């Protein structure tokens, strides 16, 4: 087994931040479910999302959510790859593909949130 990691670090920071983002995710998910599914009609459509995303506060929430979830998932994937892929070349290839995918999905999500509806309403009324 090849023990030399491609990145050459022990991963202790990733380990720590995975736990930290895990705790954040648990809190954000509770808010997310409460708002999306347990208040209002429980359905989702453009108008409902539009009313919420008019607020920069919700945009900030969603951006943080996006970043934490992707970071947490990537840190997890890293561990899984370390467990099953032992050759440096393959690791480098798969890590790179994963990082690239994460960057693309972060960009797609961030652009969706940031560019949505420029008319700012800080505290949107409930639809």
């Amino acid at each position, binding site marked *: 087994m090849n023990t030399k990691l491609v990145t050459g670090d022990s991963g202790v920071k990733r380990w720590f931040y995975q*736990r930290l983002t895990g705790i954040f995710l648990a809190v954000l998910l509770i808010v997310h479910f409460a708002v999306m*599914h347990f208040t209002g009609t429980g359905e989702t459509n453009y108008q409902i999302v539009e009313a919420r995303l008019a607020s920069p506060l919700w945009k900030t929430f969603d951006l943080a959510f996006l970043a934490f979830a992707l970071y947490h*998932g990537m840190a*997890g994937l890293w561990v899984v790859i370390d467990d099953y892929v032992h050759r440096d070349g393959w690791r480098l290839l798969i890590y790179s593909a994963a990082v690239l995918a994460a960057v693309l999905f972060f960009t797609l999500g961030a652009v*969706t949130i940031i560019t949505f509806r420029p008319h700012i309403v800080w505290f949107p009324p409930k639809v």
Partner: protein
Amino acid sequence: MKKNVYEPRYRYHAGTVAWILHRLSGLALILYLAMHIWVIHHLNRPLDFNNIMAFLNEPVFKILELGLWGVIVYHALNGLRIIMIDFFTRKGAAVQKQMFWGAVVLGVVVFAAGAIPFVGTMIK
């Protein structure tokens, strides 16, 4: 003569099962997150977005959503258990099995708390 018998290092205790399920649920959630981001990006075209939402209202997806809810509840609660094992260094690991069963019981309650109203609106 004693045979050289292979003894597996891991046996299927609560902790092993918890770990396997955690890994599978984590990977499933990554897959879902990717699809979620993809679906939500259609917000830039309101009509498309509403069509997709209507499509996802089909019973198949509702049932899948229920499964997703279970996966999330499991991963979240077992994740918090792992964090407690890691950070409560004095006692965490010693009570990991109890925490696993605690997470299972709490999980069933949380799952039901979400699933019952969900199924309620589904039937309506």
